């Protein structure tokens, strides 16, 4: 079905000089959509051309609308030679395709805006013109309108109505009526950079071909996912993640995963019962994903016996003792068997086909087509539908209160693959199968933990030459499917009270209780009674990839925790050999990473990690593992004991051990002090110690001993050699400077409300660091790099303390032999320093914040936000009326002859330009999200052959990232938004050839465009 796109090119400005002789440019514009191209007239000899063109109309298929970006190319007309390209603008039309019914934007538009086209939406504004060789080159002013005819054809190829959110939560102002489940799509193509034609075309042409292709593939993946969502009966995708795997010679893979949901606008007018995992689309829902999934599992390259899945690291357990654990991890094939059997034992089912197959391939083959038919333990009967879902995965990180019943722990699976040429890009089966395998494995791990769903699900790859490591991870959990979801609660976190009131059923500590019965634990684990309710059993450490659920009892504050590991790898091995080596090494890496993480956690005196993200990167010489999370102290879980150093073998090292022990104690004490754990601890000791020695305690201990085979003290660090001493030194993080709170979650758990200012200054930042790793002591060096990067961030933000750094995200690449590139993304929330009066917190809210620990957990900004709704108009007017401090003094009054009063006014109106905030968070602290205006996903390539002249590689990168952010801001503004939430940067590939003075960088950025209203301080009172 057709859609109509209307484009009008108004003007250009600040264009570069293309004609050296006259110092001007003869510019015209080519507008291309799909196969159709329109042109404007040539505007001669001007750097600020005014085309004011007529409306160019494109009538295109709506599938094409979704796939193809609108390309606006500025050209310089040349009479005698070929016309030169000035630059291009890529416009993703998807944000304009959302049908009015769903988004709420359309409704509002229809009401408020006087847009002539019915149902269509408009994009207009100055957009930066970008050239891959020169960067930003002026701006062009355009208006784009889309008129769409709705399509109800059953066999259609498009999915225009489906809205995409990269926000991993329920978008503000919406309620989730039902969750249709996990959706995924994978598209494979040749990478233009590696095609034969690249040898003869210019770098610019090659880069542009790539940019266009990436844009198209991105659109295609979204369109196909949208189709699945429509089949499932949903209308939106939340927690959408899109990844580009640049496999090099073997091609390019674009993957998208997300959670299909049915969203509805919520009108804040009462509670409506919401059925999660609605049954109605059951029949349809099963068919479509299954079709793609049940493809014969034949490993294309059976040679690669290295298709080895790395171990499940079932966090939530403590490594009882290094030796047994290591054994468990390394022999993954054997490992699966007991787990599966324990599953079937406990639930009396066949456990699918997960019987005694030792070969991983065989095991997968068996498990794919037969979804286990038994119901798992949890009282909710709707669970049956979960089995119907092939993948009970949810990509969201934040859930409505009460949704999560129990958190089992983190489950993850990795697999090492050897890349081969994709013969037929139409059928990307191989890649699909790879992911199917790994997803099945994650699912089976979750089931081993007695959990039915996986929350906060993520997938990643790391590619080095022809070896590729696929990882998938998530948090196994049991969720309450039939849940009375108060929409207000969903969005504004007010439900804490609701939950605590009926404490019989919904204990706040329930989330921490183990979801499996004690008898059926498939692995050694130390359990104890819940410190809050004394009924449930809790593990001694809880690790999850999601945000801390609302309503969890936290004492003290959370902080960043990170384990870093670097293992050497032989560089000379290739192909199979290399894959084998990596897959052999992975279990050890993962085990070490986990051990380091747990020991650090204990050193900090905390017992839970949320938002854990483990990244494994492979390079030529090293394999690097980074685990980042937010550590906190859950009241329900037992107080962790400090790791004790021991070295049984060498007695002469006693003194050294003592020193290390002292160091650890000092670090522990410092952290207790820093994160406010002291108070809580004392309380725990005073009140709870007596009860602890009661009857059930002994019973508990005995149980423990049985399971862990006599290793009661599970956290002993053995010091056998010097390397181990290093390890201990690595355990002790330098303290975060005063005035900084650093986490990788949305908000700092346990931080009182008034600490985050009323009108915060938001700053999303990108930090890119690239340097050398020496071959010797690489691990130590890696640690230093990270410490240095963190410290440099603190130093950078030194003048805006107090400062909260949230959503810190690290990614590591090993591009060259001995090089490491670390990319850090985060959002700094700082006090709005310019107006100190606004900082004063209001008494009401701060009291609330101190009073209940639950309200501090998450969403805590929103309750003020909601109360602010009514005064919105007041807010905007107040802002406008703010006195302008920088109006120059009027010139001497007796010279007023030639001055027009309008002049001056105009200039200073411009200064009132509203900034575009970009945050990596799902919410905007200090503001309220009013509308979602679409999902943007950009792919930029920048190349330069004058790196030295551009200020080195750093200068090149800095200007590139600056420009990219500028372009993002321009597009946000053109769509009518004033902020971007859930900002991401998934790719940052930097290639450098110092001999040719040349460099190239690829960046993939994006996020959700929103319109937000600032909350002014007076409203909060």
């Amino acid at each position, binding site marked *: 079905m057709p859609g109509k796109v209307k484009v009008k090119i108004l003007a250009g400005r*600040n264009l570069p000089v293309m004609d050296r002789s006259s110092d001007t440019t003869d510019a015209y514009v080519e507008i291309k959509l799909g196969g159709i191209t329109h042109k404007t007239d040539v505007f001669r000899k001007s750097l600020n051309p005014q085309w004011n063109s007529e409306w160019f109309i494109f009538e295109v298929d709506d599938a094409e609308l979704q796939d193809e970006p609108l390309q606006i190319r500025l050209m310089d007309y040349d009479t005698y030679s070929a016309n030169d390209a000035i630059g291009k603008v890529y416009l993703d039309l998807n944000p304009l395709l959302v049908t009015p019914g769903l988004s709420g934007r359309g409704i509002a538009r229809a009401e408020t805006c006087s847009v002539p086209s019915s149902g269509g939406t408009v994009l207009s*504004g*100055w957009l*930066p013109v970008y050239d891959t060789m020169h960067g930003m080159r002026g*701006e062009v002013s355009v208006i784009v309108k889309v008129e769409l005819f709705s399509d109800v054809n059953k066999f259609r190829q498009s999915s225009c109505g489906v809205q995409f959110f990269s926000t991993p939560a329920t978008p503000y102002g919406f309620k989730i009526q039902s969750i249709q489940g996990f959706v995924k799509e994978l598209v494979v193509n040749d990478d233009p950079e590696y095609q034969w034609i690249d040898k003869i075309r210019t770098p610019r042409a090659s880069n542009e071909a790539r940019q266009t292709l990436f844009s198209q593939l991105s659109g295609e993946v979204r369109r196909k996912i949208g189709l699945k969502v429509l089949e499932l009966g949903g209308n939106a995708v939340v927690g959408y993640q899109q990844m580009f795997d640049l496999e090099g010679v073997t091609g390019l893979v674009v993957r998208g995963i997300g959670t299909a949901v049915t969203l509805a606008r919520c009108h804040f007018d009462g509670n409506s019962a919401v059925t999660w995992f609605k049954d109605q689309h059951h029949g349809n829902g099963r068919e479509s994903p299954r079709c793609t999934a049940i493809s014969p599992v034949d490993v294309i390259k059976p040679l690669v016996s290295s298709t080895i899945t790395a171990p499940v690291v079932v966090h939530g357990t403590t490594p009882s003792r290094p030796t047994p654990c290591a054994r468990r991890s390394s022999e993954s094939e054997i490992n699966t068997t007991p787990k599966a059997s324990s599953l079937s034992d406990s639930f009396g089912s066949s456990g699918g086909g997960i019987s005694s197959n030792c070969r991983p391939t065989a095991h997968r083959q068996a498990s794919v087509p037969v979804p286990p038919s038994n119901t798992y333990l949890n009282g909710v009967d709707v669970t049956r539908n979960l089995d119907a879902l092939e993948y009970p995965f949810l990509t969201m990180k934040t859930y409505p209160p009460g949704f999560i019943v129990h958190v089992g722990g983190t489950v993850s699976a990795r697999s090492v693959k050897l890349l081969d040429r994709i013969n037929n890009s139409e059928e990307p089966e191989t890649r699909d199968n790879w992911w199917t395998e790994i997803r099945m494995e994650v699912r089976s791990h979750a089931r081993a933990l007695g959990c039915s769903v996986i929350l906060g699900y993520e997938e990643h790859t790391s590619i080095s030459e022809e070896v590729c490591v696929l990882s998938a991870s998530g948090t196994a959990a049991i969720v309450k499917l039939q849940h009375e979801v108060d929409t207000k609660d969903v969005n504004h976190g007010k439900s804490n009270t609701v939950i605590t009131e009926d404490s019989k059923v919904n204990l706040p500590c329930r989330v921490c209780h183990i979801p499996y019965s004690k008898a059926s634990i498939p692995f050694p684990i130390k359990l104890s009674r819940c410190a809050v309710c004394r009924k449930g059993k809790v593990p001694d450490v809880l690790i999850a990839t999601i945000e801390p659920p609302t309503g969890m009892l936290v004492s003290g504050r959370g902080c960043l925790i990170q384990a870093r590991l670097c293992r050497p790898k032989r560089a000379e091995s290739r192909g199979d050999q290399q894959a084998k080596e990596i897959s052999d090494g992975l279990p050890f890496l993962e085990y070490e990473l986990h051990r380091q993480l747990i020991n650090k956690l204990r050193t900090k005196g905390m017992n839970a990690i949320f938002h854990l993200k483990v990244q494994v990167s492979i390079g030529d010489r090293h394999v690097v593992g980074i685990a980042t999370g937010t550590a906190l102290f859950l009241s329900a879980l037992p107080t962790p004991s400090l790791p004790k150093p021991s070295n049984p073998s*060498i007695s002469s090292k006693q003194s050294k051990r003592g020193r290390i022990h002292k160091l650890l104690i000092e670090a522990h004490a410092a952290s207790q002090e820093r994160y406010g754990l002291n108070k809580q601890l004392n309380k725990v000791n005073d009140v709870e110690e007596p009860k602890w020695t009661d009857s059930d305690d002994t019973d508990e201990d005995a149980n423990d001993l049985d399971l862990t085979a006599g290793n009661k003290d599970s956290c002993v660090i053995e010091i*056998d050699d*010097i390397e181990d001493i290093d390890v201990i030194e690595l355990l002790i993080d330098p303290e975060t*400077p005063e005035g900084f709170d650093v986490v990788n979650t949305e908000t700092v758990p346990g931080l009182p409300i008034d600490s985050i200012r009323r009108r915060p*200054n*938001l*700053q*999303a*930042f990108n*930090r890119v660091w*690239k*340097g*050398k790793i*020496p071959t010797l*002591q690489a691990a130590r*060096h890696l640690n*230093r*790099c990270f410490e*240095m990067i963190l*410290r*440099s*961030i603190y*130093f*950078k933000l030194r003048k805006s303390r107090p400062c909260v750094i949230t959503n810190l995200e690290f990614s590591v690449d090993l591009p060259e032999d001995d*090089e490491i590139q670390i990319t850090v993304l985060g959002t700094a929330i700082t006090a709005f320093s*310019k107006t100190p009066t606004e900082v004063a917190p209001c008494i009401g809210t701060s009291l609330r914040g101190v009073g209940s620990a639950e309200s501090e957990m998450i969403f805590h900004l929103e309750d003020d936000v909601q109360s602010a709704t009514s005064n919105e108009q007041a807010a905007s007017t107040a802002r406008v009326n703010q006195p302008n*401090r*920088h109006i*120059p*003094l*009027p*010139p001497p009054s007796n*010279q007023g*002859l*030639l*001055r027009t009063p309008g002049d001056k006014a105009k*200039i200073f109106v411009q*200064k009132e*330009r509203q*900034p*575009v905030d*970009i945050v990596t968070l799902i919410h905007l602290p200090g503001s309220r999200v009013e509308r979602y205006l679409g999902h943007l996903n950009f792919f930029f390539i920048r190349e330069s052959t004058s790196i030295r002249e551009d*200020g080195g590689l*750093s*200068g090149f990168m*800095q*200007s590139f*990232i*600056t*420009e990219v*952010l*500028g372009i993002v*801001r*321009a597009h946000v503004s053109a769509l009518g938004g004033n902020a971007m939430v859930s900002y991401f940067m998934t790719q940052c590939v*930097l290639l450098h050839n110092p001999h040719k003075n040349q460099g190239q960088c690829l960046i993939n950025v994006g996020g959700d465009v929103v319109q937000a209203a600032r909350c002014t301080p007076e409203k909060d009172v």
Partner: protein
Amino acid sequence: MKYGRYCWRAVFLFPQFCKILFTFSIDMECSVDVFVGNTTVIDPEIYQLWVDGNSAHEAADVLQKRGILQQWGANMDLLMSDVLDHYRTFHMLEKTLHTPLKLTATGEWTFQIDGDTQQLLIEKYYELDDVVVREVLGKKLSSRHRKDLDEVSEKTAISLRSCRRQFDNVKRIHKLVEELPGHIVNNIQHNFLLSTELSRKYAAVVFIAVNRFETTKRKLQYLNFSDFYHCAHQMIEHWSSTSCHATSMRNQSETETEIETDLDVDRGFLHDLREVRILLDKEKELKHLVCSQLKGRLTDKIYSDMESSFKTHSRSLVLLAGNLNRSRELRSLFVDLVERCVEPLRQARWTSRDLRLFLDYYTPAGVQLFKSDSATALVWERYMKVISSCLVKIYHN
């Protein structure tokens, strides 16, 4: 066993060990080290150092001496990385700062900077050092002179980079404003978004440059920039074509409003100034008028000098006025003032108070003598207003 083996390796590796430690300290060097925020981060302190022409290393040294490392618990590497980050930002910004209107334009998305910071950036970038401007003043703003800036830098003890920046700024503003009609201060303010004070400085420089006033003569070396600044603004205010003093040219000026700029001295006025030569003939009366008024107000010594050399003093002022319509005379205005007025008076040991008193009575006396010709009286008054003010200002050592 394990331990033993390790020791063995350690012993063997010992020569390399030192190397490892050494490389650790320097090997943190990296090829890329950037921090890019959504809002462009500007540190006013570092910006000032950049504007002052310090290199990144110099700036880091300065900051280190100010104790920034102790204050924030950082090391030199962090500081250097931070400074370099800022310097790269400034470098990128510099191009935009050449046209401040672009920085503040609505669709400018490259740098997201709040209004106050924008103002700070612009103001600081266009900041002028009086000593440097004094050197630049009256010189042709050509690349030849740009090369000579190292001498200026040496003389003024201001870094060469800063001198170049100021030179280029003056040149840039001069080039743009030269042709614009209307008030120069306003023009500068609107096109470069500078504060009034700074705009006035530039206006003075541009005014002097456009009218090619001689300022570099040896005799004028004692004058500093604030003297010229004062004089230039006096002239802009009272002598330029747009100054709203009623003159005989009034009718004409109204018709030509569009193209007029206060950069040009009102030609008609200069032409009319020839008429004041009549005063040469009425010297006796003039002297009488002035002397009678001043008697008792000046010290005896000065009074007697004034009385005796009244003719010379008056003559030089009147002749100056009469010749100003010749552009060469106008150009050498400052030289003439110094040579013919300031120096003789200084020799006679007049104080600047004496001079002011003298001028206060001299001007109205002249007006009184033009009783019959009110137009010329106005011209005289307009002339003397500026000259008195300038003379008083430049009458110092």
